[in-house]
C-alpha cells in the first residue's frame, strides 16, 4: 500500500517479468496497522484485487495453487495479505492456498507486531491450506553460517553458485542486505514446485503436500529446511555428503524457523529430493534417521517422498524437508505472550478500533483462535512417548 518497493521492482532487472497492469498500490501505507490493511484497504480495493486475480487466473490452463507471500508483523502484508487469502477462498474455492509467512523476531522494531501477527494468525488458521512459517532470525543465522564457512576456507573452496542464498540464474547485481535472506525463501519455493515443473521417478504435486502433511484441518503449519546450504568444489566423499544432506535437514540450525523438530513430535514429514538420488538412497536414510525422531503413535510411518531428476543450479542434489511438527508451538506461545503484554494495558488499541469494521471482539477472537491452536498442539505433545494400546479391531464372527 505504498509505491516505493513496487516501483523499485518495476525499474529493476526483472521488470520485464511483471505485467505493469497487475499492480495495486496506494501512497500512504498501512502504518503497521493490521486493521488498516485488512479492513480499510481490503474494502477499498476488493474489486480491483478480484479483477486482477481473475485476469491472471484466466491465463492459466490448470490453476492449482496460489502462493501468498507476506510478513506477519506489519500492516499491509499481514492485514491486506490475509484479506487476499479470504478473497481467494471466496473466488477460487477449489484452488489451494499456500502461504509463506515471515514471523517477526522477538526484538522486532514494530511495536504493534504482536497484534498484527495474532490477528493474521487467525486468518491463516482458518483460511490457508498450508502455511510455511519463516523467521527472520533463522534466515540471518543461516546466512552468517554460510558466510563463515565460505570464508574460513576450512572445507576447501565452496562453489560460488551453489549457495542457497545465491540468486544464480537471477539478474540482480550488487547485493543488498536482505537479498541473501530473501533468496533462501525463493529457493524454498523453487524446490517446493520443482516436482511439478520437472520430470522425476516419483512426482509430487502441490496438492499432495497438504494431503499428506495435514492430518487435521487447523494443523497446517509446516516447518521447512533446505540442504545442502552450499556445495564444495572438491567432490571426494559423495555418499557421505549425500547422507549428510539428510541428517542436516533435521538439524535445528537448518530450519527456517527457530525450532527444534528433533526434540518435538512429528505428525508427518515430507522429503523432496532433487538431482541424482535413487529410491534406495531415500530408503536408507529414512531407516537411518527414524530412530532419532519421534512420530505420533498413529503415524509411525509418516513419510512422504518425492524424487525430481533436475537439481538446482550449481548442485548435484538437494533436499527440501517439510515437517508437520509440534516444534512450531513455542513460536506461537511466544507470540501470544507478547500479545498479552500489550493487550493487558490496551496499548495502541485505539489505533485499531478507529478503523471501520474493527471491534474489540476481533482481538479476543483472534486470541482464542491462537490459544485453541496451541491447545491442539499441547494435546498431541501430551501423548508423546506414551505407548497407547492399539484400538480394538472390528471382530468378524466365524
Amino acid at each position, binding site marked *: 500500500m505504498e509505491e516505493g518497493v513496487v516501483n523499485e521492482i518495476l525499474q529493476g532487472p526483472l521488470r520485464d517479468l511483471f505485467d505493469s497492469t497487475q499492480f495495486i498500490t496506494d501512497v500512504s501505507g498501512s502504518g503497521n496497522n493490521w486493521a488498516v490493511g485488512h479492513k480499510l484497504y481490503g474494502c477499498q480495493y476488493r474489486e480491483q484485487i478480484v479483477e486482477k486475480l481473475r485476469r491472471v487466473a484466466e491465463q492459466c490452463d490448470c490453476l492449482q495453487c496460489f502462493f501468498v507471500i507476506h510478513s506477519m508483523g506489519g500492516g499491509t502484508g499481514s492485514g491486506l495479505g490475509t484479506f487476499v487469502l479470504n478473497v481467494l477462498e471466496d473466488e477460487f474455492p477449489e484452488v489451494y492456498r499456500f502461504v509463506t509467512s515471515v514471523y517477526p523476531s522477538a526484538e522486532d522494531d514494530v511495536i504493534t507486531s504482536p497484534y498484527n501477527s495474532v490477528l493474521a494468525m487467525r486468518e491463516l488458521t482458518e483460511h490457508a491450506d498450508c502455511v510455511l512459517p519463516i523467521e527472520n532470525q533463522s534466515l540471518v543465522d543461516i546466512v552468517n553460517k554460510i558466510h563463515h564457512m565460505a570464508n574460513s576456507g576450512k572445507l576447501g573452496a565452496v562453489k560460488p553458485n551453489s549457495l542457497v542464498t545465491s540468486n544464480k540464474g537471477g539478474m540482480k547485481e550488487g547485493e543488498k542486505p536482505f537479498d541473501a535472506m530473501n533468496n533462501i525463501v525463493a529457493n524454498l519455493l523453487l524446490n517446493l514446485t520443482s516436482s511439478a515443473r520437472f520430470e522425476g521417478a516419483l512426482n509430487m504435486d502441490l496438492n499432495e503436500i497438504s494431503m499428506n502433511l495435514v492430518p487435521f484441518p487447523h494443523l497446517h503449519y509446516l516447518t521447512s529446511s533446505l540442504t545442502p546450504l552450499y556445495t564444495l568444489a572438491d567432490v571426494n566423499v559423495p555418499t557421505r555428503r549425500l547422507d549428510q544432506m539428510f541428517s542436516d535437514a533435521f538439524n535445528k540450525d537448518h530450519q527456517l524457523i527457530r525450532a527444534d523438530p528433533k526434540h518435538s513430535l512429528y505428525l508427518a514429514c515430507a522429503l523432496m529430493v532433487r538431482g541424482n538420488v535413487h529410491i*534406495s538412497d531415500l530408503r536408507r536414510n529414512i531407516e537411518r534417521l527414524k530412530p532419532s525422531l519421534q512420530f505420533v503413535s498413529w503415524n509411525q510411518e509418516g513419510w512422504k517422498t518425492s524424487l525430481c531428476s533436475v537439481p538446482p543450479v550449481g548442485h548435484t542434489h538437494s533436499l527440501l524437508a517439510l515437517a508437520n511438527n509440534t516444534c512450531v508451538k513455542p513460536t506461537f506461545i511466544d507470540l501470544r505472550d507478547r500479545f498479552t503484554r500489550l493487550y493487558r494495558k490496551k496499548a495502541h488499541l485505539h489505533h485499531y478500533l478507529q478503523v471501520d469494521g474493527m471491534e474489540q471482539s476481533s482481538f479476543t477472537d483472534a486470541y482464542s483462535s491462537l490459544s485453541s491452536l496451541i491447545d491442539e498442539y499441547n494435546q498431541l505433545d501430551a501423548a508423546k512417548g506414551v505407548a497407547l494400546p492399539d484400538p480394538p479391531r472390528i471382530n468378524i464372527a466365524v
Partner: protein
Amino acid sequence: MSIITVQLGQCGNQIGYELFDVICNDFHSNGLCPRKENGLYQAASKERFFEETESGEFVSRAVLLDMEPKVISQTLSLAAHSGKWSYGEKSQFSQKQGSGNNWANGYCVHGPKHKDIIMNLVRKEAEKCDRLGGFVTIMSMAGGTGSGMGTFITSCLRDAYPTSLLLNEVIWPYGTGEVIVQNYNSILTLSHLYQSSDALLVHENDVIHKVCSQRMNIKQISFRDVNKVIAHQLGSVFQPAYTTDGATHYSRNPLGELMESLVPHPEFKMLGLRNIPQMSEHSLAYSTFTWHGLIKHLRQMLIANAKMEEGINWQVHLPTEVATRNSSLSAEQLFNRSVANLAIFRGKDIEGASSEGFRDPAMYTPWLPPDDSFSIWKTPRSFNKYEKSATLMSNSQGLLKPLDCIVGKAWNMFASKAYVHQYTKYGIEEEDFLQCFTTLEQIISSYSTL
C-alpha cells in the same frame, strides 16, 4: 485371444511400459527352441498384446490413463524410441492436475468426470481385437489416480463388459516412505476392487526391492529396476503356454484359464506370484539349473511363504497325519496353506519337469478337490534370457500378513480421525471407511481360517 492392458497413474504407466518392453524383447529372441515352436509362440504372443499395423509395426493393446501429463508423455516417448513397438496414437488420456494422493479425489471426482472419454478409448481398443479375452489393469494402491480412479474404472469395465475377465495388477506400497495416507488409499482400493474385479494380483514393493538388492545385485535401486522385475514376473505368466498335456496349440484364453485354476470362490481372490531363478544377467551366464532343483525351491518358497529364493526357511514342512491328530502348534502349523496354485514352467528339457510336489493335498484347503487345486502350464520355449524358469501363482495365505498389517495401521489412524477430513471433502464419509474395514476384516478372517 487378446488382452487389453489399462495403465493407470504414474506407477501403472511405468510398469505397463516395462511389461510391453519385456514381452517385445522376448518376442524377438529365438527362445532356445525349434523354429516352428518359436513361430507358434510368437503368433500367440502377438495376438495377445499387440496389433500389427499394415506397415508391420507393433502397437500395444493398451490404454494409458493419468491425471497429469508428465509420466504419460515420458512413457510414450520411451516406447516410440524402442524401435520395436509403440503405443497407439490415440490410446492415452491425461489431464493437467493429479489426484494428489487422494483416493476420494480419483474415485469420486476424476473418475466420474472423465468416464465417458475413458470408456470410449477402451471401447476403441476392444473393437480392434478379433477376440477379446479380458482386461489387465495395472495400478498402485498408494496414490490417488491409480488407486482411486483405477478402482472406479474397474467398476465401469465390469459394467460395460460383464462377461469379460478383469484382473487387477495391484502394486502394494513400501511399508514406509512413499505416501503417508497410503494405508487409507489401500484399504479403500482393496475393499472396492474385491466387489468388481475377478482377481487381484499383488506385487509388494518391499519384496521386489529385496529381490533387486539380494538377487539382482543392484547397488543403487531405482524404480526402473523394481518395475523391470515386476514386468518380468508378469510376462512369465502372460506369455503363451500350453495349459493342458498334449495340447497342440497355445492357450487361447489365458485369463479365463488362470481364473479357472486359481479363483474357485469369490471370497478368495488375492493372488501372489513367485518366480525362480532370478539373478543378474552377469551371473546368469555362469549358472546352470535343473528342473528338479528349481521346483524343489519353488515348492519350499510356497509352503514357507518365502517371497524369493534367498532366506527360505527349510524347517517348515507340511503336517503329517500324526501331527494333525496331535494338533500341536509346531513348525508345521506355520506353513502357508493354499486355496489353489498354478505353476508355469518355461524352457529347455521341460519334459523332465515333475510337478508332483505341488499335488500334496495337505498343502490345500480341504473344501476343494485336490485335482482342482493345482494346475500346470508348460512350454519348451524359454522366456526372457532364462534358459529355464518357473513361476508359481498362488491363491494362499501368503498375503495375509501384509494385509493384516495395512488394515491395522489404517485402523489406528482412523481411530484418531487423522486425515479423514481430506476424504470427506470429496464425499467419502466415515461410514464408507467402516464398511471397507469390515469387508477387509472379513477377508482376513476367511484366509486365516482356511
